[in-house]
């Protein structure tokens, strides 16, 4: 039974990463926006939800004790607004400059999480974040399974929404702009506005994912939102299949499994005094996996599928050949 509880725990964390990965897939997989500051948007969502939903505290702002669903909505909104502000400033930049800028913003925000004690709790983080199905905490199987069901339902809902969008004129235009921006402009389209929309949507999903993660673990700290998280999410998307929403979910589960498994093996093999240093091997394992995928299957396990508007239907009769 312990294995079942752990399996549900593992899958719940994997689902939260799948949400982040879906957000990155909108930005990179569908639109080609090189966001290297993923952790900042996830962290912003997590802290926002924490501020809204934790019980009243004396040593920092917030603690409004609101329901968890309010925290989720606020997190998605803050993720979206933060993306809008960052995107409005940076979206016209070339891909590599956008990467440098978003990385800088991620570092800045991580330092802000660490130092704005009156808002975030500083290095000690934010605790007593209400956990979904908190009244089941004493029964680990029920608690973990309930949380897994909730996280999986959220992943499914976001997946359906994104699939709906990919098969809409918006998704078609995203693909067109990614293929040839000049041609799209000549047809009266505004690529800057379109990219900004994709960046905001992706950021809102990342913010939501941060909140879901925070309400599962119950505690957040600045150390959760280091560039390592961004690296993990990128690895998940590349392994699973950039541009494919199912690939994003598969990649999240697979890479998280390898991360968790390698962590367990390291803790078994290495003595306690060497485990902190040996933990770096987890990064090596993911890095090697990434290299192998890029060498043998650069499009990822599930490559981008051809997507069409769901309104196209079949032509009543095909016209004559010229």
């Amino acid at each position, binding site marked *: 039974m312990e294995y079942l509880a752990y399996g549900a725990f593992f899958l719940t964390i994997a689902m939260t990463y799948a949400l982040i990965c879906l957000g990155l897939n909108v930005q990179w997989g569908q639109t080609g926006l090189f966001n290297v500051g993923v952790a900042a948007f996830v962290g912003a969502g997590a802290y926002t939800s924490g501020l809204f939903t934790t019980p009243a505290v004396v040593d920092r702002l917030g603690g409004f004790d609101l329901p968890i669903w309010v925290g989720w909505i606020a997190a998605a909104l803050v993720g979206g607004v933060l993306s809008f502000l960052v995107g409005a400033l940076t979206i016209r930049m070339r891909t590599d400059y956008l990467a440098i800028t978003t990385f800088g913003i991620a570092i800045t925000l991580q330092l802000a999480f660490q130092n704005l004690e009156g808002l975030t709790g500083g290095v000690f983080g934010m605790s007593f974040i209400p956990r979904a199905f908190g009244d089941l905490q004493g029964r680990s199987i029920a608690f973990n399974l309930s949380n897994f069901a909730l996280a999986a339902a959220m992943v499914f809902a976001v997946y359906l*929404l994104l699939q*709906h*969008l990919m098969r*809409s*004129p*918006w*998704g*078609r*235009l995203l*693909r*067109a702009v990614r*293929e*040839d921006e*000049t*041609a*799209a*402009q*000549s*047809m*009266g*389209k*505004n690529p800057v506005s*379109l990219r900004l*929309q*994709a960046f905001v*949507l992706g950021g809102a999903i990342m913010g939501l994912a941060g909140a879901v993660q925070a309400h599962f673990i119950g505690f957040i700290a600045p150390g959760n939102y280091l560039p390592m998280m961004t690296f993990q999410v990128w690895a998940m998307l590349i392994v699973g299949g950039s541009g494919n929403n199912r690939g994003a979910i598969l990649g999240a589960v697979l890479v998280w499994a390898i991360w968790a498994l390698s962590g367990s093996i390291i803790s078994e093999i290495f003595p306690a005094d060497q485990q902190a240093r040996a933990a770096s091997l987890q990064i090596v394992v993911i890095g090697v996996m990434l290299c192998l995928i890029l060498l043998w299957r650069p499009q990822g396990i599930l490559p981008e599928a*051809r997507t*069409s*508007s769901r*309104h*196209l*239907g079949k*032509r009543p009769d*095909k*016209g*004559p*050949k*010229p």
Partner: protein
Amino acid sequence: MTEMKNSPDSNGPLAARDLKKSFGGNRVVDGMSLALGPGEMLGLIGPNGAGKTTMFNLLAGTLASDAGSIHLSGTDVTRTSQQGRCRLGLSRSFQIPKPFSRMTILENVMTAAQNQAGENVLRAMMQPRLVAKQEQANVARARDLIDFVSLSHLEDQPASVLSGGQRKLLELARVLMTQPRVILLDEPAAGVNPALLDLIIDRIAQIHAQGIAVLLIEHNMEMIARLCPRVIVMAAGKLLAEGTPQDVTRRADVIDVYLDGAPA
């Protein structure tokens, strides 16, 4: 010479006055003016490096002019973006076609439809009925245009499978999907085999017959002679000559700079 028939009437479908454009120290367009009358098909010819495509890019808004003005049906669009000009009824093709290679022919054409509610992420989520209704109308119109350019047997194929000439036809369908009042066609005959060339000429003539004003850059003098009652000749960024194709190709200065010393 710019005071001839080509004197820009800013209320016509398209009028440009004294356009200038330099790249570094090289002035590529040097005080060019032109006017396109209602429903007119105007040819723009000249030797390579004359500045025709740059002139085209200035008119379409792909490039910003250093000086001069451009009016579209009486509206000053000199500082209007390329996409803004398209929304005002100006559409263009490219010398080297720019299909969305991994998208189907049908999707390529549908992308060009204007005012699609579903191209906004919020409306795509919140207004599914309106989006569906527009999509159905756009599918029907796109299929009509694909029929018009004789690509219907390829509509569900990715654009990457098309030959050079078929890509030109696809661009023609995309241009028409924007419901333009003025069309700029950049060398629609370049690299096209003779069989398709007749088809392209025929389709351009049909577009013109619908009353759409067309500005055509072309080196193929046979095509120009068949389609354009009036031609302007550019050389070194300036207007060199203007008149019927027969008249300009007899002029000594045109023969000298463009026709390599031999009359067409």
